[in-house]
């Protein structure tokens, strides 16, 4: 093991430790914002698998987060333990993603964007209108934070630590997928689906799996979101949230492992620091995204990648 090969794992470990220690210098509000960052990052990681690695545009990631959040809130109110609701939220969104993607991907790839756009709007209508299930516009309040293996996550700091652990677990899961033959197949169908198919890659099935797994991870993010904010209503799960998640992935760098971390940081933390700017922030953000897309379509991680390894054009792709 050379020092260089230790650099990346070392930096990751240092990052995790720094994040774990961060709440000790913050007030409750700051900690809850960090928790929101962690949960948003998980949702964006799921979308990065769909969009960044497999090249499919999904406009429903926010809706999947919503479905996960509502499923968890509703099931927990019925007394189902949190561990089970977390798993069920992920599986539910995986199944819905599969059913939704199947007809769309049969035709042409950009149809997935339209189907998911329609689905995100429909999901919002259901959240808002099915009062018997979702509480309608009043939402569901009093969602309790779970006790996990005897660890009470009710305090702000404890729940953040739990979200951080989940973030590490989800990242590990996605890292595993990306480096497995599946990850290679995703990349192949993004870069050149016709050639991929001629090598035996079942592009339809892999595309569907990339979308459904991404949706499932969105569901997990939703399951974590509900106890984080303890109160959910339809507003945060409108179409604009899905759009926002999409832009996070692009801004951070689609197809880069750490892209969603950076993208979510910009979308969640920056507005908090720039509160004085309020509405102007969104105008400037949207404009910045367009400029970024025109000049550096590979996002912030793409820029960093080029800055860090300028003299090594022949290196195998390590993204």
């Amino acid at each position, binding site marked *: 093991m050379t020092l260089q090969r230790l650099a990346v794992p070392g930096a990751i470990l240092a990052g995790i430790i720094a994040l774990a220690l961060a709440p000790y210098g913050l007030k409750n509000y700051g900690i809850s914002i960090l928790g929101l960052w962690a949960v948003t990052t998980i949702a964006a990681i799921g979308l990065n698998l769909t969009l960044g690695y497999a*090249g499919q*545009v999904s406009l429903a990631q926010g809706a999947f987060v919503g479905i996960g959040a509502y499923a968890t809130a509703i099931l927990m109110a019925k007394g189902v333990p949190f561990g089970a609701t977390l798993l069920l939220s992920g599986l539910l969104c995986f199944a819905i993603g599969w059913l939704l993607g199947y*007809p*769309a991907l*049969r*035709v*042409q*790839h*950009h*149809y997935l*964007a*339209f*189907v998911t*756009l*329609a*689905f995100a*709007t*429909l999901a919002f*209508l259901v959240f*808002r*209108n099915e009062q018997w299930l979702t509480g309608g516009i009043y939402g569901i309040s009093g969602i309790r934070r779970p006790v996990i293996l005897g660890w009470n996550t009710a305090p702000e700091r404890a729940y953040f630590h739990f979200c951080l652990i989940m973030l590490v677990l989800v990242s590990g899961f996605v890292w595993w997928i990306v480096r497995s033959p599946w990850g290679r197949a995703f990349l192949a169908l993004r870069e050149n*689906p*016709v050639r991929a*198919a001629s090598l035996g890659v079942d*592009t*339809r099935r892999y595309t569907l799996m990339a979308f459904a797994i991404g949706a499932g991870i969105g569901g997990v993010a939703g399951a974590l979101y509900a106890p984080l904010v303890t109160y959910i209503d339809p507003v945060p799960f409108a*179409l*604009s949230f899905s*759009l926002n998640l*999409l*832009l996070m992935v*692009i801004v951070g760098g689609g197809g880069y492992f750490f892209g969603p971390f950076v993208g979510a940081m910009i979308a969640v933390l920056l507005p908090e620091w720039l509160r004085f700017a309020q*509405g*102007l922030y*969104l*105008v400037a*953000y*949207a*404009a910045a*995204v*367009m400029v970024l*897309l*025109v000049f550096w*379509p590979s996002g912030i991680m793409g820029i960093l990648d080029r800055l860090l390894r300028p003299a090594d054009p022949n290196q195998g792709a390590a993204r």
Partner: protein
Amino acid sequence: MESLLYLVLAGLMTGAIYALVAIGFTLLWQTSQTINFAQGEFAMLPAFFMLVALNLKLPLWLAILLGVGVSILLLGLAFKRLLVDPMLRHGVLPLAIATMALAIFLKESVKEFYSAEAQRFPSLFPEQKVDVGGAMISIQSIGVFLVAIAAVVALQLFLSRTRTGRSMQAVAQNPTVARILGVPVERMILLTFAINAALVALASALVTPIYLAKFSNGEVLGMAAFVAAIVGGFNQIRGAIAGGFLLGIVDNIAAAYVSTQYRAAIPLLILIVVIMVRPQGLLGRAEERTV
């Protein structure tokens, strides 16, 4: 409960607006693979250009004319040159994503720099109602319908009867062949963007007196345009027209017979069903499968 005749007539009026917005959406896709997710915002914004002109005490007709002109410059030419041209070399999907950012930019800019409140917008037509076969229809609706239809017919005549129009169709069907045949492809594509901007500006002037001018208007109009274009057939202008009318009528009937809460869901369900059953759209030709 209104009569079915009334609902269909009202639906034709709404449908004509949807068709205007959907035609432009289809044109951009055909000529330059631009999936414009900001199309709804394109139909929201011109009303604000016109409001600015009205605030300067200009007469309504001049305000509308100026609004259309500014739209052609900004939503047509500037959009093409500043966003579509540089993005298209990155691919169809990155461009689509850039238009999503543009949608947010336009919407938030109006909210921030003009107003977050709905603004009244004067109508070209009087408010009175007339009796059409037992249904009371406002002159405004009839006027909107006639102007929109006139625009659609004029566009169709332009596309089929003039040399430029036929060149544009050639570009839409096969840019490579069109280029070999000596069609100035670039100029034709630019022209489609200008036509799209004019169509959405017209739609904006027609619809805003009814809906009021609000930064969020684009959400409804944009969704209607996508659904109309896809349901009718993504690769056909007449598909967009048919899809627009169908959607307008279904929309009005759904508002009356389905709960108001789920009125917005009906077009989306139609969209999903069409994609499942007849993905090339009602009037579209099946394209060769890519994968």
